[in-house]
């Protein structure tokens, strides 16, 4: 559920579409939810157009739209337009873009996304943020995938998973022993979702974590595939 393509402005690397497609092909990925980094770093609507074009050309890709609450004025319209175009997942970047989840525009945009029946991806972030996001959105009918949690935030994420049934967690930075087992257990098997953050990060690292996790084959299949489909409203 967690990939992207484009330029990394902070280092001399090109994480372009070809690079992403190569990683997906190498690992036999059936579907990757992705977005253009242009939408994060430069202009949301232009980047979302780029995402749409890439997904139209490559069947393995599914589109994720990026919304930036800092430019609130057109975000809800952008959400509706993208939903009509087939986007079902919307991603936020408070960390990279420098805004707070407590800012009212975020809540208002999420109200619109809930009305549409969309899904949200957002970083787990620093201490307190997973709880804040869950509490802030709990009255909305909105599934939220927290991504990028690691050992420092795992305890809070487990508590949030236990308390809030609409919250999911990805595992691309879950690097401590038994972290995958923990999110699987605390989410009742169904709300732990594989992510890689490819092509910027190693696909093999979270994959090997999943392969070695002491969970049943059924739980592993759900984690690697089925739970993501359920998150977006397909499958079980």
């Amino acid at each position, binding site marked *: 559920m967690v990939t992207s393509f484009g330029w990394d402005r902070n280092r001399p690397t090109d994480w372009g579409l070809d690079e992403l497609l190569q990683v997906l092909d190498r690992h036999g990925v059936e579907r990757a939810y992705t977005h253009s980094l242009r939408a994060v770093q430069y202009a949301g609507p232009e980047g979302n157009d780029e995402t749409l074009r890439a997904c139209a050309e490559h069947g393995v890709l599914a589109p994720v739209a990026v919304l930036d609450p800092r430019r609130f004025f057109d975000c809800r319209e952008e959400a509706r337009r993208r939903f009509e175009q087939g986007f079902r997942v919307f991603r936020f970047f408070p960390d990279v873009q420098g805004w707070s989840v407590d800012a009212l525009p975020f809540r208002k945009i999420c109200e619109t996304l809930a009305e549409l029946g969309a899904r949200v991806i957002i970083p787990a972030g620093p201490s307190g943020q997973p709880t804040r996001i869950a509490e802030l959105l709990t009255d909305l009918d909105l599934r939220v995938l927290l991504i990028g949690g690691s050992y420092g935030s795992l305890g809070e994420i487990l508590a949030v998973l236990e308390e809030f049934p609409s919250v999911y967690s990805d595992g691309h930075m879950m690097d*401590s022993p*038994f972290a995958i087992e*923990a999110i699987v257990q605390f989410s009742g098997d169904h709300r732990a979702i594989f992510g890689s953050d490819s092509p910027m990060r190693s696909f093999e*690292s979270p994959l090997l974590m999943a392969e070695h996790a002491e969970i049943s084959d059924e739980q592993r299949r759900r984690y690697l595939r089925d739970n993501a489909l359920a998150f977006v409203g397909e499958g079980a």
Partner: protein
Amino acid sequence: MKKIDMHGHLGYWAFAIPNCGTAESLVHLCERYDIEHVAASSTQALTYDMRAGNEEMAEAAREHEPLLMYVYCNANWLAESCEEMDTYLAEEFGVGVKIHCGYSGVSSSDPRMYDLMAEIARRTSLVKIHPGAAEDLATWARSYPDLNIIIAHAFATNYPAAVDLAAAHPNIYLDFCCSHASRGKVAYTVERIGTAQIVFGSDMDLIDPAFVLGMFEEADLTDEQKRAVYHDNGARLLGLAQSLAERRTQG
């Protein structure tokens, strides 16, 4: 493929890491990932009580063959650190020293750290440091050519700086355990300096070895390169190379 893990810890972390923190949990991970030995330091020593932690680490290493010991030294207590080294480096399982600028609150540029490094160089050929400034690491590498210095985490996302250091100093080694599994990190390093100065370090059981292995597996290394990184470079630093050769002859 057999592995030697050059970066481990015994003890608890203040995080939600179930089933971990004990010698048994380290041995469990060693078995899971075919790790012959893990060179580890005590988290209690790092975060709270140097002497109690080193004692705990020594006890675990005595009882569990896969565990080898880095003696933790704290530059705030030079005399006590020297005593700890004299006690535990004399043991068969005492393979080197671990220092941590962050937990001790003594930066690598601090004169106390320079004093400690001089004492370390008198007593052992292996030190692992986390983190340190590039200029200090370079100074120590030049001043103590017989001391092998492992840069823990290879400066994380700033790994090109660590690679530059290793390129300039043959006694500087890099381990890549990190929560940020940057893709391309290993390939970049191998292209610049080859594999002779890369060791496998997992940071278990804070980090699962699988996470770090993934970075190497993604890098398209040859079997020979993997063997060097996963096992032989570490064996050489730990002085296990001879026994390794003997085992191969026997095998």
